[in-house]
């Protein structure tokens, strides 16, 4: 057997941390504690597309070419989302969280890692149907400015409409999804009445800090991209940001299990990953 047959893989494992360090030093974006498997897959593909012979050669490029960095940022920030993704989450939210929110005169909500905003508008629709939206202030954040610009517009291609509709119905929607958008030039535009309660802002979960005290945090399908240490750090940030008895909603495959602050949260719905901050 060729003793050097795995040399390229061994080199890649040396080069990737150096590459991420270079990006952090140069551009301030910190991917050093993201899931290694995820980063490796993304970088290997970018390397193949760009015909680089090594990660080190690609590092040379990223240090000297900002536009190349921007395309890497797109590779590394996966913006896949949809309206009423995981409909069961929304129906559980209606049952388990909404009655509690009703007791608040004013409700502050933080959507962290909101991508292009579909999830934010979905929750706004739910809150409107529950007559709570007027009492809400929603902060929706992401570290990718391009997706935030799309989120602010609230305009989406109609190709996914069928899926959105199905999800909305399964989520226990009380009206029709078409009550909340208008169709124009093959796109759907969400209603102004929803967006007026939402502020979209740039926030990096790794390098930025608490910016408000909130009653509810949704951060779905973001933590899966982080390693254990970073998950702990970000959950601590959420803990610090939540008011007492505030709610935390994670993605269906994410959980507080094995994290340091697990015991500081109560399980509200263990399959839909809805948690409540304990009073201590």
């Amino acid at each position, binding site marked *: *057997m060729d003793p050097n*047959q*795995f040399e390229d*893989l061994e080199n890649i*494992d040396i080069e990737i941390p150096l590459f991420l360090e270079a990006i952090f030093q140069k551009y301030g974006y910190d991917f050093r504690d993201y*899931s*290694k*498997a*995820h980063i*490796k*897959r993304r970088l290997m593909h970018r390397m193949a597309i760009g015909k680089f012979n090594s990660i080190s050669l690609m590092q040379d490029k990223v240090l000297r070419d900002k536009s190349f960095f921007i395309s890497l940022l797109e590779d590394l920030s*996966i913006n*896949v989302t949809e309206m009423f993704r995981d409909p069961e989450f929304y129906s559980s939210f209606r049952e388990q969280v909404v009655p509690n929110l009703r007791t608040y005169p004013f409700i502050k909500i933080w959507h962290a890692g909101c991508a292009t905003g579909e999830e934010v508008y979905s929750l706004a629709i739910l809150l409107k149907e529950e007559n709570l939206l007027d009492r809400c202030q929603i902060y929706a954040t992401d570290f990718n400015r391009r997706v935030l610009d799309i989120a602010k517009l609230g305009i989406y291609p109609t190709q996914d409409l069928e899926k959105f509709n199905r999800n909305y119905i399964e989520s226990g929607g009380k009206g029709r999804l078409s009550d909340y958008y208008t169709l124009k030039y093959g796109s759907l535009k969400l209603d102004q009445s929803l967006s007026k309660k939402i502020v979209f802002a740039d926030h990096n979960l790794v390098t930025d800090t608490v910016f408000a005290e909130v009653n509810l945090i949704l951060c779905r*399908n973001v933590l*899966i*991209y982080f390693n*254990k240490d970073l998950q702990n750090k970000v959950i601590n940030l959420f803990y610090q940001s939540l008011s007492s008895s505030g709610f935390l909603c994670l*993605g269906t*495959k*994410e*959980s507080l299990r*094995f994290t340091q602050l697990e015991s500081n949260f109560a399980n509200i719905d263990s399959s839909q990953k809805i948690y409540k901050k304990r009073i201590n």
Partner: protein
Amino acid sequence: MFRAVVIGTSYGGLDALKAIIPHLSKDFPLAVFVVLHIGDNKNDSFIRHLKKQSKVKIKEAEEKEEIKPGTVYFAPPNYHILIENDSTIALSADPKIHHSRPSIDVLFESAAWHFKNQLIGILLTGLNKDGALGIKEIQKYAGITIVEDPETAIATIMPASAIEIMKPDYILPLDQISKKIIELSELY
């Protein structure tokens, strides 16, 4: 010595897996990862059904879960599954590949990088090209590759697409695949 088996399949996959997994013993020495395309459907009922017929441990893969031998991990619907360097499982919500999430290519590629020549890759019946590039990557890093014989597969496209771009170590009819896996798992 091998450490893991990865299996990919789509159309016809339920039957194909039923012809393999129940043959594995309770103390099968390798970890097994399965990507089965089932659209947006849940796979709980299939897993439950398969468990009844099998001795080996079967479960849905969880995020950051530590990999153990003698366990069959199914990718959850709507998530890709990857192998981390510290022998844990990573899930991802990345875009679909070949209209599929989970994608066989994603699992195979990351398993190839991690397990290298200690990996057995198996591609079964299916209606798209997912898995072809992945099994080629497994071969690149000296893993053993087994492709179901398109002649006997319920859907030929998946195994045939692989054979078009690489030369598998074994091309076998479905009923001989479990025997081959067990034989390989007992090597050394």
